[in-house]
């Protein structure tokens, strides 16, 4: 069966890994793109070409290679910025979304500590035990633990917006955001439930109370058109490796005034203005947040990835994945003993689908699927509190991308049935 929005069999030829077999000759059915995506030749070629022709330290040298490397790095920034409707100078390169989120959380702890020593900082970043920070109960650990740590360092209180039975944010709990709230950090699309959250209204609420609004867009930007302005956030974070890019590169976008009001995070070379032994002053964003020799080849690779995505068309990818999601939900919800954890409808929902099977542990489901060449992820998906909320120790999750087709969903469903039979639970 073929989806209508994309010519998947043609696209698959661009991804060398999809030609390999696993577990003794089984065709690979890769349904783990929410963990990390596969890479097309275009990305691998771009990275390699950079090393073979222009590799040098950026922003530092006066020789031709250094010029070319700097140009490659800054062009990559511009291309990636364009992909999300941002200005290049508002995009910071990090190593992954986790670092980006930590950068946001550390802005508060660093400012708080400096203020206590008499330093001059943006007062909105200074926390006290009366302050609060708000997240949701469906955060990835990357958008939970940095805020827990911030609270452990400042005495501020961590609050969260709970979830409804059908996998949505309980918007009745929006009142946890109040005058004490300094930061509201929420996931755009949940990596475990697939839910797409109404971030705009939550960010508006954050703005009303004067809190910084942060959105974890790890699972949305690879799969749908996101324009940084539309979300109403102050900071946006995501990863390159989930959108066909190399490992080792993440992104932070910030409103210009907000970015430039944050204290530095990692400090060292290339982020300074002047340095003496007694003290230093810092460059404006994005340099302020890019200390040390950066991931230049990875930026170049990620530029190739967004160009590739643009070539295919992100809207077409979104529509294609919508078809896959509808098919997967229809199939799974009809299977006896299978329960989807997260929204069962395709409304405001991405393609990451978690489910549990009566009488079977996800690890065992995943093992049988793997034996058939179907790669899914099992576990708590770095969203352990969300599992607890739904009373499951773990789930099996399938997640798609542009290179998956309806057949892949069917292969997964057949695997689940086989597991049920093998373990004698149907």
């Amino acid at each position: 069966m073929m989806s209508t929005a994309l010519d998947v069999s043609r696209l698959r030829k661009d991804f060398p890994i999809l030609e390999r077999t696993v577990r003794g000759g089984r065709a690979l059915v890769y349904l783990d793109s929410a963990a990390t995506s596969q890479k097309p030749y275009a990305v691998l070629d771009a990275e390699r070409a950079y090393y073979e022709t222009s590799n040098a330290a950026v922003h530092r040298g006066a020789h031709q290679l250094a010029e070319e490397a700097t140009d490659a790095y800054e062009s990559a920034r511009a291309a990636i910025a364009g992909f999300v409707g941002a200005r290049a100078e508002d995009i910071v390169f990090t190593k992954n979304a986790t670092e980006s989120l930590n950068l946001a959380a550390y802005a508060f702890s660093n400012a708080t500590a400096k203020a206590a020593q008499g330093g001059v900082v943006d007062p909105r970043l200074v926390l006290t035990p009366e302050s609060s920070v708000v997240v949701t109960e469906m955060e990835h650990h990357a958008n939970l633990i940095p805020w827990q740590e911030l609270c452990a360092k400042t005495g501020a209180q961590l609050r969260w917006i709970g979830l409804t039975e059908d996998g949505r944010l309980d918007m009745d709990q929006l009142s946890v955001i109040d005058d004490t709230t300094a930061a509201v950090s929420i996931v755009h699309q949940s990596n475990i439930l697939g839910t797409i959250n109404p971030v705009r209204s939550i960010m508006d609420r954050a703005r009303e109370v004067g809190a910084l609004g942060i959105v974890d867009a790890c699972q949305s930007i690879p799969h749908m058109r996101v324009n940084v302005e539309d979300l109403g956030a102050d900071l946006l974070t995501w990863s390159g490796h989930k959108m066909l890019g190399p490992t080792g590169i993440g992104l932070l976008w910030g409103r210009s005034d907000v970015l430039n009001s944050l204290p530095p995070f990692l400090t060292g070379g290339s982020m300074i203005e002047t340095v003496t032994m007694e003290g230093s002053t810092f460059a404006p964003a994005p340099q302020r947040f890019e200390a040390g020799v950066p991931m230049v080849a990875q930026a170049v690779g990620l530029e190739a990835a967004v160009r590739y995505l643009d070539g295919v068309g992100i809207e077409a990818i979104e529509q294609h994945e919508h078809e896959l999601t509808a098919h997967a939900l229809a199939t799974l919800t009809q299977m006896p003993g299978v329960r989807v954890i997260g929204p069962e409808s395709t409304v405001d929902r991405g393609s990451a689908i978690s489910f549990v099977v009566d009488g079977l542990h996800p690890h065992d489901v995943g093992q049988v699927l793997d034996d058939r060449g179907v790669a899914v992820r099992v576990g708590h998906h770095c969203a352990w509190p969300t599992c607890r909320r739904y009373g499951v120790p773990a789930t099996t999750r399938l997640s798609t991308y542009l290179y998956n087709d309806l057949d892949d969903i069917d292969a997964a469903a057949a695997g689940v049935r086989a597991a049920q039979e093998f373990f004698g639970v149907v």
Partner: protein
Amino acid sequence: MSDNVEALYQEIILDHYKHPRGAGLLDHASGESFQVNPTCGDEVTVGVRLDDDDHLHVGYEGQGCSISQASASVMTELLEDATLDRVADAERAFHELMHSKGAGQPNEDALGDGIAFAGVSKYPARIKCALLPWVALQDARLRAGIEIDKPTTPDA
């Protein structure tokens, strides 16, 4: 199902999974250890106590996949009322088996039903599951001050 997976899910394992032996926490444990596999959330608590003859008594409670739960059941059945010598041999043999990458000759004397886990060693992600109760046992033992002279963990 491939041969490897058939080997992974031996009948014995499935049987222990469905009909766990000795499940339940030990009353009056002199050492107890809670272990969790951070990737998948598998949990097990193992408690131990020595009787007057220096024989071990074991109890456990847990939740998780077939491998971790069957492993706890097999271990408990094997080591209930065992001498410390036997415990040492079993701990060592089980660790060895898990690090054998599918090539191990399981020591049936030391392991009993535990030899059924030979197939697990081919699946790195499942080795942790199988080891979980054994790690808890060792930790519970140490907390109870039950030392064993022989080395129980190979240098793998």
